[in-house]
């Protein structure tokens, strides 16, 4: 089963667009990434620019309204993610616990929906999804 590990670094919600990353921390994180890869569990990973350079689009009543970042009301934001393939939620939690995260960082673990999770009408409606995902080279 696939899990997404969402890194939520405290303070990233107010980081400037040109946030400077600490080389030592990046190095430690790369070592961790390598361990995920060596174990054959890593499917994808990315880091995100701070929300101050992002945007939010809300669809109240189906009408899109664009708001530029930063987002003052946001108490926590995603700073990056890993997509992993493991056998259980416990295994995902164990991997997250090994991350060389800093104080005040949180990793949220969320199970990814698979086609088998759906039934009936819904399953029929999304039957083309795996083919679509494979077509764009997405890892499963």
């Amino acid at each position: 089963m696939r899990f997404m590990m969402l890194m939520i670094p405290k303070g990233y919600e107010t980081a400037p667009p040109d946030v400077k990353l600490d080389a030592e921390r990046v190095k430690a994180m790369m070592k961790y990434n390598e361990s995920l890869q060596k174990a054959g569990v890593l499917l994808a990973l990315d880091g995100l620019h701070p929300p101050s350079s992002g945007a939010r689009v809300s669809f109240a009543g189906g009408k899109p309204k664009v708001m530029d970042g930063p987002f003052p009301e946001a108490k926590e934001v995603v700073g990056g993610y890993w997509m992993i393939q493991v056998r259980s939620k416990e295994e995902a939690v164990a991997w997250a616990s090994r991350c060389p995260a800093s104080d005040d960082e949180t990793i949220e673990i969320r199970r990814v929906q698979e086609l088998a999770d759906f039934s009936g009408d819904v399953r029929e409606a999304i039957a083309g999804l795996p083919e679509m995902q494979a077509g764009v080279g997405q890892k499963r």
Partner: protein
Amino acid sequence: MRFMVLVKADRQSEAGVMPSRELLEAMGRFNEQLVQAGVMLAGEGLQPSSKGARVRFSGGKKSVIDGPFAETKELVAGFWIWKVNSRDEAIEWLKRAPFEETEVEIRQVFEVEDFGGELTPEMREREERHRARAEELSKAGKH
């Protein structure tokens, strides 16, 4: 440049209620347009936070908290990774998405070039090796 498009959770998604067939079909058509335009690199839905967990790092200690998590508005229900030429292009694509009440966040993805001098040549090379290997593994169908 790549953007991560984070679709926020709401009461329904957190309760595990599936969208209507109509909305799913509209989303399927939107996804098809993204694929045909070469914009979509990835897209997934996440199960409700009640099936998830959090690992919190604080004071040198780790604590595990099981879901659900209260801040429904900030939770992620699904995401895309898009490849576009500008932030405006990402916003234009998103405006066409068939959402009804949802809030969606657009965030640029870091590329190796963004790290400039912070990333040593060795780290850069290792990063590229990682990506290539991950791709090989997925092509080999390893699970």
